[in-house]
């Protein structure tokens, strides 16, 4: 309940510093507003006999005016120096930062880890390690926002930008695009997964030896956010995939093709060659992001959905 009202607790030390400044600004803002409102109301409703001319302003009034003009000056200077201090402490990423490439296009965030592992609209990072994101856009202006870490950064075509953060709490946090970038702007959202370093290590190396192919496929399906387009309900921008494995798919030219591992492999690597009827050629290729064993795992997962 209180978490909802006070907002998500920050998930980094920087976020806590920003929150403290926010609380201060909120506090003085509220105090000043309440003071002004009370004074205005009291001054307005206090009875004055009709016709009586106003005397010269009392000492109290003069003191009130001087106080409430002088105090805001002190407050804004304090806010300025406090802000500069927070900014200066966050100016450059520590040299030991883990670098991740972030690339924006309409309407996907793609993150590429140091070993070449890629993910879409999701970002897996280890806890307590500074993360440096190198950002660039392939088309229009975007802006990566990680509200739990209280940071945003422009993601621009032709101008590389950077942002960094050091997550201090494991968990799932939202990521958004906060620069309007077109029809799919609101779907350019995803999750940041802050994992303990060992789990992150397993994740990033794709080490899934302990899992069955179906389970590994299910994890991949979630990690690559396949469901953001291929929703089970069929309401996404792509066709629903549950129950389709082993059946015939109708293509745009009216012909049919058996939905099997081979067709799935082709759809992942060359998605727009043989397109299902009624859908736009908008799916990105996963060539280089999925190896053959992962394709087999995804195939096993979809096959398991078909038999349900």
């Amino acid at each position, binding site marked *: 309940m209180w978490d909802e009202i006070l907002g998500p607790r920050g998930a980094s030390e920087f976020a806590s510093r920003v929150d403290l400044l926010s609380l201060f600004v909120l506090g003085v*803002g509220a105090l000043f507003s309440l003071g002004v409102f009370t004074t205005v109301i009291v*001054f307005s409703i206090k009875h004055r006999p009709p016709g009586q001319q106003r005397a010269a302003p009392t000492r109290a009034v003069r003191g*009130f005016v001087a106080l409430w003009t002088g105090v805001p000056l002190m407050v804004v200077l304090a806010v300025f120096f406090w802000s500069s201090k927070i900014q200066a402490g966050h100016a450059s990423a520590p040299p030991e930062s883990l670098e991740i490439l972030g690339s924006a296009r309409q309407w996907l965030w793609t993150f590429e880890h140091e070993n070449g592992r890629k993910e879409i609209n999701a970002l897996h990072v280890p806890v307590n390690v500074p993360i440096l994101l190198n950002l660039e856009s392939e088309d229009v202006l975007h802006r990566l926002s990680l*509200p739990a870490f209280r940071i*945003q950064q422009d993601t621009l075509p032709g101008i590389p930008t950077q942002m960094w953060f050091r997550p201090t709490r494991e968990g799932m946090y939202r990521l958004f695009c906060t620069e*309007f970038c077109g029809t799919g*702007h609101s779907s350019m959202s995803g999750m940041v997964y802050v994992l303990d370093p060992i789990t992150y290590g397993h994740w990033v190396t794709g080490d899934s030896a302990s899992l069955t192919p179906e389970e590994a496929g299910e994890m991949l399906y979630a990690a690559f956010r396949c469901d953001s387009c291929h929703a089970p309900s069929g309401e996404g921008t792509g066709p629903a995939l549950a129950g389709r494995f082993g059946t015939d798919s109708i293509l745009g030219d009216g012909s049919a093709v058996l939905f099997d591992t081979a067709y799935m492999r082709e759809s992942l690597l060359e998605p727009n060659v043989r397109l299902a009827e009624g859908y736009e050629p908008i799916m990105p290729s996963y060539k280089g992001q999925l190896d053959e064993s992962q394709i087999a795992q995804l195939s096993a997962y979809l096959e398991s959905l078909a038999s349900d």
Partner: protein
Amino acid sequence: MNTTQVPDARSYLQTRRGIWSWLLTTDHKRIAILYLASITIFFVLGAATTSLLGIEALQPEGDAMSPENFDRMFTLHGLCMVFFFLLPVLTGVLGNFLVPLRIGASNLAFPRLNLATWYLFVAGGLLLLASTLHGAVDAGWSLLLPYSAQSSGAELVPAILGVLLAGVSVGLMGLNMVVTVHRMRAPGMTYWKVPVFVWGQYACGLLLALLTPVLVAALALLLRNELGYAPFVAETSGDSLLFKKLFWTYANPALHAPLLAGIGVMTKVLTTISGRVLYDRRRVIIAIMAIALLHLLAAGQSFAPETRGIYVGNLSSLFALLVAVPSAAIIVHWAATLQPGSQRFTAPMLYVYTFIGLFTIGSATNLFLAASPLGSHLQGTAFGVAHLHYFVAGGVITAFLGGLHFWWPEITGRLYPEMLARAVAVVVFVGFNLMFLPQFLLGYLGMPSRMHAYPPDFQVLKVLSSAGATILVAGLVLPALYLPWSFFWGHRSTSHPWE
């Protein structure tokens, strides 16, 4: 006190008749009426889009309209409300009608330019409406490149031209005000004797006149971009941020300019209805001009902190923070003027209280956006939307309605229905607060603006905000009905029933 008392407030309406006596008039009072009528049309259009956007926000999935139509809707809303309501309304209607009367001049300095300004406004409006016939622009009211060039077709050129004409119109109107105040004052009226109402119009006009060339430069380059030469697109070695920076250099101070006119209007209403002399008017005048100067210097505030460099960043942050000081000074000077007591809570006075509420809280939320680490976290979120609407739109709408009710007898010679007007003032106050306080929270939680669909856990706050929108629109529709009614059938009144 009133050197400009006219025997019959309606005389300017009756001297000449026929359509050409209106369309070719150079009488500042008649041009003010032309502005009032045409701005009302755009305001109603903008308010209608507000309702549709409010309905859309009820469901996280955003099923009420397609994403394409949602994008067009908020773009039309922004363009209508900013360029055809917020920027021109206080100068075009109240300033036009009243500034010459308050400084003892017979007209504005350039009466024919004044009429031409109105024609530019109308032509701009027609072009904007024409652009919707071709499918309407969907890039947001800031027409941000490169998206606007990528997504739009034939509709972008008329929309750019429409905004260009409206922007130039506003700038010329500001210039007219500035020259009028400098050159047309009655003999003996020194600058310190110029009413605070006129100082507000002067500060607003000065900002808009100075800023308009920046808007023209940005839009001219955008237009060239449309015609094949692409200075903003990265592939042709242009700077993809250039348009955004130019546009916001204009928009950030320009959006705050009408608030200064609003401060002037509210000062006049407050002192007249309370029957007091403004407490230390010199300092209030200095505060108004200080706010204008600081907004100009803080133009870089709306650039992303990370892309504006540390010096520009720190300086614009400092100037934007400092705006709070003269703003607070004005509020406490008003409070000291009200002391001690026994106020008449007439409708214009209720708008003064609303203005004090919105302006005080808005000045406080401005601190969040001005302090760099907070501004960086909140930019592009619902917090920015809430601030713009609560502070700028709220302040201008409140000042306009308060001023219009206050001067209605002087403008039309009739009385508006007082009790109904008081009820509307309260409804508008409740509507603004219910609509935008949840959005401040949403913004801090990270909710971006312009989201067709949103995460379901934001729904409670979104629904509260939509409920506020309903109340607000209901409150704003009523004056659009009863004011025209009272223009024809209201009780006759003297020009100055408040004194």
